[in-house]
């Protein structure tokens, strides 16, 4: 791989890490700073959520009931304009200091040339999400 390609992949990985850090801090502004206006957020196999305003609304409504969040990153690596993240998303919904949810999940990100997240596709077991305190993932 040439130098330019390596640089872009490293940058993209940094953007994705910053986006996920926004989740740890439940900071929707920090998240949205990393995405395009026409961003698509897809929780497989649910309906896609398109556009910055709608994605912001969705993310904010997931943050609302959460007391603490920590995404454990098992793998983060890019190729071309894509970055894969394999994670354990840990959620504390009741403030007890324990994780009521430890969601095993993979997220595939696609980024634009200028390093913004344009598409985010999440793969995980939806029943696990809903039976461990996860709020609605549709608008």
């Amino acid at each position, binding site marked *: 791989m040439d130098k330019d390609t390596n640089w872009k992949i490293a940058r993209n990985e940094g953007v994705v890490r910053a986006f996920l850090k926004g989740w740890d801090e439940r900071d929707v502004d920090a998240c949205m700073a990393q995405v395009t206006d026409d961003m698509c957020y897809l929780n*497989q196999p649910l309906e896609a959520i398109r556009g910055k305003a709608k994605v912001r609304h969705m993310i904010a409504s997931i943050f609302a009931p959460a007391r603490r969040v920590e995404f454990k990153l098992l793998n983060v*690596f890019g190729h071309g304009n894509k970055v*894969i993240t394999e994670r354990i998303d840990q959620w504390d919904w009741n403030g007890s200091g324990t994780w009521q949810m430890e969601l095993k999940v993979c997220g595939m990100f696609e980024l634009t040339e200028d390093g913004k997240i344009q598409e985010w*596709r999440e*793969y995980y077991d939806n029943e696990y999400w809903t039976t461990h305190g996860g709020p609605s993932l549709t608008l």
Partner: protein
Amino acid sequence: MTHDEIVERNVFKVKLFIDAWEAIDPDVAMACLSDDIVYINQPLAPVVGQRDVRKIVAGIMQLTHKVRWELRSCFGRGNTVVTERLDCWDFDGRGFGLKLPCIGMFDLDEAGKICGWRDYFDNRMWFENGGPTLHLD
């Protein structure tokens, strides 16, 4: 081998494994896996070792009329390869009744065999559309 050569070898092995699924050939599929293979369909319990993983793999294949894993992404870093897929299953000879969006993460050992396989997908979608059991009873 350089890092890029290792990644290339690993990606090749994972694609060989996928070809074996499409050929519904458990012997070729199992030959891609190490003796200590750990197979996890998240969030189900891991299935460990050639003997038990073969039971699951052969069990699924036995009920499969036709299968095609459409690769949307496939790339690696270090010992790990990601596959983002649409797994199209025909369990009854009447066409692909199940099209399952899925990500599979593969870890490969030094010999270039798959020693870790973690699939992420919606389990209800699998089971409600004819998908057979994914754990040993």
